[in-house]
């Protein structure tokens, strides 16, 4: 066990000087309009809302709030573009447009990354190395499918659905837009998409890219707004398909609204994934996987490994190493290239996380937080562990969507599986072991859409993603992701 004599010290010492990404190269307009029918248009109601930098609480821009009339206009533009242009276009031509979006996005990657971090609070290292490259990769990947759909579904005639209404969350703003738009376009659908109200800026930059790429007007329409705008999209009779990523709570409302309609839908909702560490695992790499599982993107990840299940015989060792690793996580300015944990996305989300920290303590869990010094302004949260918890604790059951990990132990393989599956969610899971057979058994027994073995939070456009149970319906990504935007005729 740790004693004062053999504890490692990480505080003080050689400190990295600030290394902020510059913002000279980007331009953010004072005001953003709606992108409808290939043009930037003012909202009918004349209303705008603010988007702030969560690291400084300063206003970045004002963004149009789409009214019911604006959504109607967008859906009509999408319908016209669908019937007159996009569904009639040769698939290879459609592919060319999508490739063009991907390439422009790559060229402007630095700008996208900087704005993503400014608007959403995620560390520049992640937006630069993960969000933006993956977004471009999704467009590249689905561009390739545009003229090969018949090979994807042999013996069937794939037909587009029509107009897709898409509602995306604030945790991966551009990446989720890419996940939604790229397959929809490749399959011949047109799109009305609503970015989250706290992170609309990269979507508006994407609107510029789409305009620059010369996409026919109305193929992609971007309507900014809050829940009401989303509801307008869901309820609009001119929509053929709804694709939603967000909370299980809102997902339920959407599913109710869609019941009895002819609209098809995919829902990608919450999660409370188990990250399972067996005693025979490569423990240091497993610790790294725990960190990537829960502290990636401040824990604002639906597939985050927010429940750690560690085999009893190595639990103390693993937790000790994890605490030492947490001591080296740098929390602060998202634009600093050395920041590991950036800002919590919004005041509201910070309140939610803090509510859970309180609940955890009140329920008797032992809380551990790193010694990180938080900036005075902005929304920040220290990386946090809860130990001494069980399946009956709310911090084990409910999605916190923050840098908060609930730690439990297990003895046997079956106990690990039982605990992993004892949740209403089923989005993802992780298993760490040196034994291949255990990995295969684990992947069969855990009821979750994605299982990572000896790694965590790895994404690729070729791999399907989606949930069981209350984590959602349908799959995005890969071949499966095409299916969600097609009607397969015999």
């Amino acid at each position, binding site marked *: 066990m740790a004693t004062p004599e053999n504890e490692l*010290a990480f505080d003080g*010492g050689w400190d*990295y*000087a600030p290394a902020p990404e510059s913002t000279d190269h980007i331009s953010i307009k004072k005001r953003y309009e709606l992108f409808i029918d290939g043009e930037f248009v003012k909202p009918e109601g004349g209303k705008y809302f603010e988007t702030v930098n969560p690291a400084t609480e300063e206003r970045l821009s004002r963004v149009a709030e789409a009214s019911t009339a604006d959504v109607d206009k967008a859906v009509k533009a999408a319908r016209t573009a669908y019937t007159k242009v996009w569904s009639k276009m040769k698939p290879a031509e459609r592919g060319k447009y999508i490739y063009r979006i991907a390439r422009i996005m790559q060229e402007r990657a630095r700008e996208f990354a900087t704005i993503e971090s400014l608007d959403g609070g995620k560390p520049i290292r992640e937006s630069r190395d993960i969000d933006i490259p993956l977004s471009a990769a999704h467009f590249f990947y689905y561009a390739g499918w545009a003229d090969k759909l018949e090979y994807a579904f042999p013996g069937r005639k794939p037909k587009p659905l029509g107009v897709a209404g898409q509602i995306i969350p604030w945790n991966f703003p551009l990446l989720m837009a890419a996940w939604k738009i790229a397959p929809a376009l490749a399959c011949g659908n047109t799109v009305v998409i609503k970015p989250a109200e706290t992170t609309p800026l990269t979507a508006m930059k994407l609107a510029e890219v789409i305009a620059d790429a010369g996409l026919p007007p109305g193929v992609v329409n971007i309507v900014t707004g809050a829940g009401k705008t989303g509801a307008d999209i869901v309820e609009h009779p001119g929509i053929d398909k709804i694709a939603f990523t967000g909370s299980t709570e809102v997902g339920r409302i959407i599913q109710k609204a869609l019941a009895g309609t002819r609209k098809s839908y995919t829902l990608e909702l919450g999660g409370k994934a188990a990250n399972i560490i067996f005693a025979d695992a490569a423990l240091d790499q497993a610790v*790294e996987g725990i960190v990537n599982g829960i502290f990636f993107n401040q824990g604002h990840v639906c597939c985050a490994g927010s429940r750690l299940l560690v085999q009893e015989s190595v639990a103390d060792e693993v937790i000790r190493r994890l605490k030492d690793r947490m001591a080296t996580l740098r929390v602060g300015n998202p634009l600093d290239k050395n920041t590991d944990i950036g800002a919590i996305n919004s005041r509201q989300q910070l309140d939610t996380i803090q509510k859970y920290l309180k609940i955890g303590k009140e329920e008797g869990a032992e809380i551990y937080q790193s010694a990180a010094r938080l900036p005075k302004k902005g929304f920040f949260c220290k990386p946090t562990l809860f130990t001494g918890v069980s399946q009956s604790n709310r911090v084990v059951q409910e999605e916190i969507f923050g840098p908060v990990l609930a730690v439990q132990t297990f003895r046997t393989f079956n106990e690990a599986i039982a605990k992993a599956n004892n949740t209403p969610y089923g989005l993802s899971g992780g298993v760490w072991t040196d034994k291949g057979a255990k990995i295969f058994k684990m992947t069969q027994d855990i009821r979750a859409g994605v299982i990572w073995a000896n790694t965590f939070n790895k994404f690729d456009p070729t791999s399907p993603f989606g949930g069981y149970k209350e984590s959602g319906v349908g799959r995005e990504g890969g071949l499966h992701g095409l299916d969600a935007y097609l009607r397969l005729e015999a």
Partner: protein
Amino acid sequence: MGSANVTTLPTAGRLPDLSRVPAVDEVGVNERVARFQSRSIKAKAKIDGLKLTLAMIDLTTLEGQDTPGKVRQLCQKAIHLHDSMPGLPHVAAVCVYPTMVSVAKESLKGHDINIASVATAFPSGMSSLDIKLNDTRIAVEAGANEIDMVISRGAFLAGDYQHVFDEIVAVKEACGDAHLKVILETGELGTLDRVRRASELAMHAGADFIKTSTGKIQPAATMQVTLTMLQAIRDYYYETGRMVGMKPAGGISSAKLALHYLVMLQETLGNAWMTPEWFRFGASSLANDVLMQLKKQETGVYQSPDYFSKD
């Protein structure tokens, strides 16, 4: 020595159960190393890191063609890294063959620079224990206060861990007060799992430092191997409370790479190891690249390599 030592080193003299050493996943190690390399070290942090790097260098010449003259030159460089830049540290040690130790001792008289000597039939270690121990004693008697020994890789790979362990214990004893660095020659061990086990074995046998390579085998030091060894040092420290030093050697010739190593050291073992007492770079050409970078930080421009002495 004796019983007092046994109480501070609870497992000394006993081969540890190497089956309990955690597995190492190479893919994960590569990812962690990439994270260290993505740290951006600028301004004061860079200058401090570069100066620390200089102070951690074991300036090395280990050639069959070494002469007393060459070793004197090396010592001169060790003392006078670049006198036109005031405030520079001197290197931690010079590292030479046993026959050159007396020359180095003479040249470094009055300076606080350690004399490291390779021993134990370096670099292959293919000799009898008697010769290895004599080799060690000769170097120590000539004035070396640090001994860099090689392990018997053949025995280790054959699974004869006790043999390797006993050899290190014997060499440690022959060192007397001299510090013992144990070279694992990781380029011959083949897997990170073996590197981790060999590290544990060497530390339990009494190593003061563990060192990656002789510099005679490729690959020599890599960040992956060094990270694995640093994690073994951490585990040993958790278990025993005894600090063990780390020396990557061979292949670290750029200032940028050296800074990546320091990031890795700091984020794996913490502040206490960030001194020449606990970390060394075994290198011959690293010093000049670091000096060039320091000059660049000072003046804003790169100078020709011809402005930096090569010895």
